[in-house]
């Protein structure tokens, strides 16, 4: 294909990706070093109230935003260097906490709390997703052919459902007088309040994520199981391998590329966890990195959005993405160079 035809085919897509992904990325990078504020002027206001002989007058100094000719508040944009990052990381508080010997105090800072939770969340759900997905795939492969369609249908439901709604549907089972909480209370004979307990919420969020992603892993593993080399399996049997050994030495190595693929996709997606915080309303106890950016972008009570701090938080989130993506990208690059 000539370059011109190629460009004509790919052009619209590339144009959209540049305008809506690459440029915003650059602008976020620039914004994170800038602060845009309304220009504030200080004025003296004299208020007088009626009095006998003389009015009683008081003067106060107030601030108000300076308006331009259209009646819009004027804004200035300043370069502040790394100030937004410093606001977010609060390194002096971190240092104090370490010096005082109470590292837990670091987790009172939003960013570090979000980082701690996001990493725990990502790394703990990963083996669960792969394990559960593989277990379901093996079980379905074992089941009678006639029921496989229905099982796949039911399994797809948690995957296809709107993430916020999925999280909500589990929340309603547990929060308040939810049915599962009632069962647990009857079982243990104590009062349980899931919504008040940070660790319980954390466990629920992870449970939701595994419930939501395991079907995806299952479908891919199931497709992979159909291509397992039957001859290899047979020779393994002849060599006296039992079921467990066949699983460990034949089936899992065959599925290895798929396991890597799922692990990679899951790392990328779990690291961007966001809907869980909304669905479980966990912002008082547990927040994720992406939720932190989202929260900074929401207008506060005065209607201002802290764009620059949000940009800084977004850039810090990006560092994690780069770390996750480096190993697979390096491998792809080596493969590509090996081919050409």
């Amino acid at each position, binding site marked *: 294909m000539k370059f011109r035809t190629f460009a004509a085919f790919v052009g*619209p897509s590339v144009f959209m990706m540049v305008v*809506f992904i690459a440029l915003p990325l650059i602008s*976020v990078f620039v914004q994170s070093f800038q602060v845009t504020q309304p220009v504030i002027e200080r004025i003296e206001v004299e208020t007088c109230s009626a009095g006998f002989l003389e009015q009683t007058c008081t003067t106060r100094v107030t601030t108000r935003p300076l308006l331009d000719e259209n009646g819009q508040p004027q804004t200035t944009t300043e370069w502040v260097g790394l100030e937004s990052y410093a606001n977010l990381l609060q390194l002096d508080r971190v240092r104090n906490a370490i010096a005082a010997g109470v590292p837990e105090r670091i987790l009172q800072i939003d960013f570090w709390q979000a980082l701690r939770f996001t990493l725990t969340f990502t790394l703990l759900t990963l083996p669960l997703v792969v394990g559960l997905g593989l277990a379901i795939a093996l079980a*379905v492969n074992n089941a009678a052919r006639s029921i496989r369609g229905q099982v796949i249908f039911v399994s797809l439901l948690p995957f296809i459902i709107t993430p916020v709604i999925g999280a909500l549907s589990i929340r309603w089972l547990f929060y308040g007088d939810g049915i599962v909480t009632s*069962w647990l209370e009857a079982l243990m004979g104590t009062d349980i309040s899931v919504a008040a307990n940070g660790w319980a919420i954390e466990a629920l969020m992870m449970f939701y994520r595994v419930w939501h992603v395991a079907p995806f892993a299952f479908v891919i593993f199931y497709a992979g199981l159909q291509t397992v080399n039957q001859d290899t399996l047979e020779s393994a049997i002849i060599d006296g391998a039992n079921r467990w050994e066949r699983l460990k030495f034949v089936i899992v190595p065959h599925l290895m590329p798929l396991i890597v693929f*799922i692990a990679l996709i899951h790392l990328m997606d779990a690291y961007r966890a966001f809907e869980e915080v909304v669905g479980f309303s966990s912002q008082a106890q547990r927040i994720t990195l992406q939720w932190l950016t989202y929260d900074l972008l929401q207008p506060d009570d005065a209607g201002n959005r802290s764009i620059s701090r949000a940009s800084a938080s977004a850039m810090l*989130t990006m560092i994690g993405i780069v770390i996750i993506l480096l190993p697979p990208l390096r491998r792809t690059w080596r493969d590509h160079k090996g081919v050409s």
Partner: protein
Amino acid sequence: MATSRALRQPASLRIGSAAFLTFWCLLAAFPLFWILVMSFKSPVDAFDASALAVIFGPRTIAEGKGLSVIDIAVGLVFLYFAVRLAFTRLPGLVWALTPPELAVLGWLIGCLAYAAVFVVLLFGVLPPVLGIIDSVAGPLGQPVLGMTTEHYRAVWVENGFYRNFINSMIVTGGVVTISLTVGTLAGYGLARSGSNLAFWLLIAALIFRALPHSVLVAGYLPVFINSAEILRPILGDAAPTLYGQPLAVIMVLVAINQPFTIWMLRSFFQSIPMELDEAARVDGCTHFQAFRRVIMPVMWPGVITTGLFSFLLGYNDFLVTSLLLDSQNQTMVPAIAGYFNRETTTTDQVEAIAAAVSITAPLFLLVMVFQRQIVSGLTAGAVKG
């Protein structure tokens, strides 16, 4: 295929595997089944501590909203035939009545008309008819299962959820159409070109796929809010404020979805043999003609599958729509956040549940109709790569 004795599994393993599978299916379906049940009950029943009370809803019956055995039987028969007709007769009718060029439009109108007739029959015609039958049927006419649709009425009619539904449809429809148009072109170009540039584009797309969406929205937000001033020098007074515009959100979602779309479509295009292109080229087609007249007709399965995933992205999105749309133009998923944030009474909570079920119902239908395409889409990228 008969299994040899060496491969036959011991009973314990088979039972264990079946038990595990049953457990998983229950786990997968239970939360969804439960919110469906709760959404039809009066608030007291919906949050009862006893599961049986939630399912049968004694207090919902006491309020005079219950179904008798006859109602349930008639309702189930009606649902069965409604679903069967939808799968057997509807496609035939659509094919017969629409010219092939307008097939997509025909399907859209056919499905909407069918849904309208279905809703009118189920909620408008059946209840009064069954009410008369129940009153003369004696013991069989006594309500046994509490069921009320008041929460759905509250959500859809009184709270105007239909407006959010329309917004959702506009955004999702736009995302699917534009995504596929732009994506098929790019996917084809990338699949048929082995150049370094194509490789780098795909790698860049992979990196873009991993970006958290909030990173991008942080970039759009200031520009969108001030777009009227930024664009005024170019467009004059017609410069729009992009913030709150569904069209702007569509473009954003399309772009976010683009990396995934082109990867998936590329893998589908690669499974179409090159010889087909070459034959068309020998017959005097340009690249574009070959693409349109020869490749696209055999690409429909891949396009439908990719379209499904674009649909899911647009329909399920919370982050982008909640930040870039104001409350008048809100789509369904962010709108529901308003419900559970203000849930002060149990009635509010059950209304939130009814809204959640309303959002889930179309997705349920989608899996029912397109299960095979979804599975093939999930495996397309993975098994080859």
